[in-house]
């Protein structure tokens, strides 16, 4: 698939994963690169951008005794942004689907 398509969507995917539960960066990278054909390193710049945009924030947690892990979590703004973008994405996808499958155009 064209890389230009993916770029914008990846941000939405990251937000979606974090909407379900907090994750550390590696988690998100693994989750996405198993499903979408991108290099593993691509997710980190996105996380950083989301952080600088105030969509996500990080905290340290030492759950399994090892070194503290940096967890990412959605901010209120990020949550709002996600729900809105999700809505927009769904309706956009619906229309694209319609255009792709429609045999004849509706005439104006």
């Amino acid at each position, binding site marked *: 698939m064209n890389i230009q398509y993916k770029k914008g969507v990846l941000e939405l995917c990251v937000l979606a994963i974090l909407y379900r539960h907090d994750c550390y960066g590696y988690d998100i990278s693994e989750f996405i690169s198993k499903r979408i054909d991108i290099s593993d390193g691509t997710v980190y*710049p996105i996380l*950083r951008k989301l952080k600088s945009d105030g969509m996500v924030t990080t905290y340290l947690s030492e759950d399994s005794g090892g070194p503290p892990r940096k967890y990412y979590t959605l901010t209120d703004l990020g949550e709002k942004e996600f729900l809105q973008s999700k809505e927009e994405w769904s309706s956009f996808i619906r229309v694209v689907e319609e255009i792709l499958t429609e045999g004849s155009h509706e005439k104006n």
Partner: protein
Amino acid sequence: MKKIDYLKTLQKELNNNHVAGIDEILAEYDEHFNYKIADGYSEEEIAAKLGKPEQIAAQFAAMDTPSSYRRGNKILAALGFGFLDLFIGIFFILAYVWVIGMGVFSITAILTGFSLGLNFNPGHLVPFMPWQSAVLFGISILFLGFLAALGTIYLYFYIRQLGKAFVQWQKNTFSGNMYPPLSTNPLLSSKARRFLRSAAQISLLVFGIALIAAYIFSAIHAGNLEFWHVWHWFV
């Protein structure tokens, strides 16, 4: 490429691209290596799957620089938008008041049309005229009311869309054109658009014909082109 080489190259590339907070980024990639190594991958494999350090650094640079070097501009922009929003806000309030005014006008016109046509004259508000004139004027005003109602609906959608486009434009200025700009025309389905258009055309036509017919009939009936003088309307 070994982990240590990968991180070194990444550091150099990030430096070249003037990316801020390099330590934090390197720590993230270091961690990535550690997890993958724990899963049994070789360092070379991991490095290959991560993507070239040059490309990664370029991605950080692309996402980083706009927001950091425009931060000053952003504050200015926010201030400017604060003032702009005040005026634009007033504009939108006025526009919506206009929509409401138009809506009231259309309802009034429709009611007037009905009361004329049905010879309903509360408090003798309607001056004398033969009933045929009243019916014709009634029809004319009724359809003027419909026309105004259709205009109100369209104007409402138009202003709503304009508001959305404005918000989008403002959001874009802050996010570095993340979103595509919105059209300023309302996105009505072609069915709705067709309906609005033909309903407006019919309303306009009936309004015009009924008005002309009412005038001609009244003028003939009163025997004067300025029939309202004959019927003492404005005294």
